């Protein structure tokens, strides 16, 4: 079936974490519903957005109130793609310890990146690591 709903695009500069999440979650959820993403997809995408935006503010910008996070979204009937870019120096995702290894299991933090990779179809940290691109594709 041809696309019946126009693709959704948005771009926001988020200046504060709470306000930022309260802005992007409802907007993304409405667009996902309009484009026929099921509840499982909406759960996965919400979680990935949450982790990405939190990481950008907390770790990327190191909670510096002078720095912003740039959020871009594209959603159509086949995929939901997001870019989350912070104003920090970036990081190498390969240096993050695997939280599912036995020796790391009881550490309370460090699961955000792992959850993003688990729930999204494609995940890319663009060097120097302050820009995250992630896409959820509907199963064929």
């Amino acid at each position, binding site marked *: 079936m041809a696309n019946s709903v126009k693709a959704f695009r948005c771009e926001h500069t988020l200046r504060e974490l709470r306000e930022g999440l309260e802005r992007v979650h409802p907007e993304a959820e409405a667009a996902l519903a309009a484009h026929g993403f099921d509840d499982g997809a909406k759960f996965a995408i919400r979680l990935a957005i949450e982790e990405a935006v939190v990481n950008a503010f907390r770790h990327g910008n190191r909670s510096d109130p002078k720095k912003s996070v740039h959020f871009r979204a594209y959603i159509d009937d086949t995929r939901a793609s997001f870019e989350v870019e912070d104003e920090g120096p970036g990081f190498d995702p390969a240096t993050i310890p695997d939280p599912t290894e036995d020796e790391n*299991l009881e550490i309370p*933090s460090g*699961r955000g990146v792992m*959850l993003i990779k688990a729930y999204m179809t494609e995940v890319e940290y663009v060097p120097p690591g302050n820009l995250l691109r992630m896409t959820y594709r509907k199963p064929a």
Partner: protein
Amino acid sequence: MASSHISVRKTDNLIRIDFIDRNILDELNIHQIGEEILKAVESEFRPKVVIVFKNVEHMSSAAFGTLMKVNERVKARDGQLRLCQITPRIHEAFVMTKLNRIFSISDTYETAVASFV
């Protein structure tokens, strides 16, 4: 002061914690929720704590971190923690992160209570 996100019911050292909202375990509220749970737990010696996830539709890594802190605090008081009524999607996240090996998860409140030793 912000309104409470949990309800706490105590019978002797058995503590039942229910979440009031659906999206409470996200980044926006998790800090306050963690403080509320720890406050409820810390007034008891050898607490038997059941956290009921019946109303919870979303989780985040911050919520996992908070649950792990609660688990540590309960153990430090010689207590036990059980989680129950977790939706399949959230349970999948526990399995994915292998945190189902850290937490004792039951299907129902009754089986959670019955599992205390």
